[in-house]
């Protein structure tokens, strides 16, 4: 029993550690990718309790910076199948629990 508890604890500490943004899939170029990632991080930190607002902010900022027709999804659990313009997708995890998809398609 004692061992189990210890294990759990370590796991939990690990979990706490893993909050950095983790890019799962992206075919953007380097510059765009970092910018988009930073944006997602700021948006999620700013609206930590409201995913809708975070997604809105990501979408609007991306529209401004890289041209129209961006889409953003922020959530803790969802499935998606999307068609995107090549070199314009970013799928990342953040904060240990959030999944963020940002893509462009007009």
């Amino acid at each position, binding site marked *: 029993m004692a061992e189990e508890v210890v294990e759990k604890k370590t796991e939990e500490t*690990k*979990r706490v*550690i*893993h909050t*950095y*943004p*983790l*890019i*799962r*899939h992206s*075919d953007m*170029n*380097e510059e765009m*990718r*970092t910018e988009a990632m930073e944006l997602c991080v700021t948006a999620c930190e700013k609206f930590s309790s409201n995913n809708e607002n975070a997604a809105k902010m990501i979408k609007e900022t991306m529209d401004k910076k890289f041209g129209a027709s961006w889409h953003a999804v922020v*959530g*803790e*659990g*969802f*499935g*998606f*199948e*999307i*068609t*995107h*313009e*090549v070199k314009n*997708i970013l*799928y990342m*995890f953040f904060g*240990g*629990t*959030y*999944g963020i*998809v940002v*893509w462009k*398609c007009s």
Partner: protein
Amino acid sequence: MPTKGTARGKAPPGADKRKAKTIKDDDTITELREDLDDDWTQPKQLVKPDDQLQLSEAELKEEFTRILTANNPHAPQNIVRYSFKDLQYKQTSSVDQLAIHFALDGNLIHKDSDEARRQLARGEQGVEVVSEHQSEAGDVEKADTGTDTEGGEKAEGESGKEGDGAEDGAPTPAPAAGSSSEKKLTNQFNFSERASQTYNNPLRERGTTTEPPPRATYSSNVTQWEIYDAYQEDFEKQEKSKEKKVVPGRKDEETKRKKLTIVDSQSDDISSVARGAKIIERMVNQNTYDDVAQDFKYYEDQSDEYRDQEGTLLPLWKFSYEKAKKLAVTSLCWSPCYTDVFAVGHGSYDFMKQSNGMILFYTLKNPSYPEYMYQTDSGVMCLDIHPTQPYLVAAGFYDGCVGVFNIHENKGGPIYLSTAKTGKHTDPVWQVRWQKEDLDNNLNFFSVSSDGRITAWTLIKNELHYMDVIQLNTNDLLADAVDGSQLATTGAGMSFDFHKQNDYLFLVGTEEGKVHVCSKMYSSTFLDTYNAHHMAVYRVAWNHYHPRIFITCSADWSVKIWDRTNSKPEPVFTFDLNSAVGDVAWAPYSSTVFAAVTTDGKVHVYDLNVNKYEAICEQLVTPKKKTKLTHISFNTEYPVIIVGDDRGYVTCLKLSPNLRKMPKEKKGTEQVKPEEKAAQKLEFEVNKMEKLLAMVRQPDNKEKEKH
């Protein structure tokens, strides 16, 4: 309005000149003006009506006095009005003498009037003012005359209303002239706009559609456990790569990813510019090797004219590849389709020093780097490009395998390869040669190896099927061997060649120096056997034109030419080249020209038609004496040969004019069809050879007769 003023002033005087004379004595200005007018006008011709009274002189001179008064004859002269003052009717003394016969409201306004000022202020608008002006003209007129009288310009006009307009006109010219410097309004009567209409170009619609940006689909699921797993995986990866305490941070992540992407993008870039780079490379080579290219195309050795028979070889490009420098050239083959492309097989002839092999494709357009390359584990000993599908290359290896390479497929290795299971040779494969497609249209080729087998390989689907055509270690050989030693019994094939016309007929040269004439039909016996050489027969080749002539070369320093129909098993010609002969090749342009390479680094070119005993060119083409020449091949179109040596170099040489003497074309043959021409050429070349053969035989026969 100056213009209007004058117009109005001038018109009436013409009409009432006489009236003015008689009625107005004080109107001197008018009179003066009339006088002035008379001075320059032409005297008038009086036109008399027909019914005019003819009066006598006395009658004419008679004076009638008539006093004209201003009184209106129709005006009543006895108007009586009731006077309230005197309480009685009284006759009025003054009677209105004015009678209006005609009145027309003009559209002129005085320039000093309020209306005129207003319009002047708006005058900038130009045309608009005029039109507005006209519409308002009626009202303006009244105001105009009103102001006129009030201003007291005219003394006589005191009683006047509109009626005195005629008298009004005369004095106005003075102020009109004074104001001419003011802004002019448009002349209403003969004004025309100066604007012009230009031609309008016709409109045309033009539209294009662009390709939509490329898209891709991506799908995934976001769940808590997947997120957790992803983090876990990444975490472990980080730990492994660092083997340190994990410092989870964005920066590490980023830098890692940065490096990755940089590598990615670079590889992408290279592949995308590959074609461009290739073109640039060729352009650069074209510039660097410009002089060589010029020589290739245009240089003809002038000294040939003075040497009458001998010729020379002009070295052109030298082909080499870094990785193939230590590997001997074991085979050369021109592409049957592209006259500037050839394949080179690299391997080693040294039994003790065997290493890997290479197949390289060069083009004359780029001598600096091979077009295609394949690396093989075993040395390449021979290769052949398919005559109709030039992207297929058959190769034989030192380890006994045969393989087929496809240049179109971007594979690093062969698309077919024989294995121990599928009947590979047990000794080096010395020659491969593509054959015509079989009945099922399957591609197939033959190979000869020193294990004594001649094998046909067929490409069926993904596999290489084999069939032994002939086994060289037969009983005949055993019987031939006098001492009955075992070694002599094995026939080791070194080379073969297929007859140009008879599909079934082929020659096999062996390591023992024998040449067998074989048929594909009989797998156990030979049609004929020549004891041609004392050492290995390196090359056997049918003549391109004459169907019975073939040539052999051997390590025993000799090159021999044979006639199949010769009754005795003797060569027609024998040449001693004073060194082992690596390769010999007939020239594609003549039946009597062939070239051989020897291990002392020399190229020998013979033209039997010119000299039956000596080479017409014997030239050292290697920089060092030690270098051995291994192979030679004629280009089918250009007068060049390529020569390979045992250091991995391939040299391209140009034949001087003496080495490629062509039959003189008869006059009038230019119109002949190409097929006929080819037939003529064939006949000519065969006859040339026949003549030679006859010359060689004659002395023999004569000798016989003597005996």
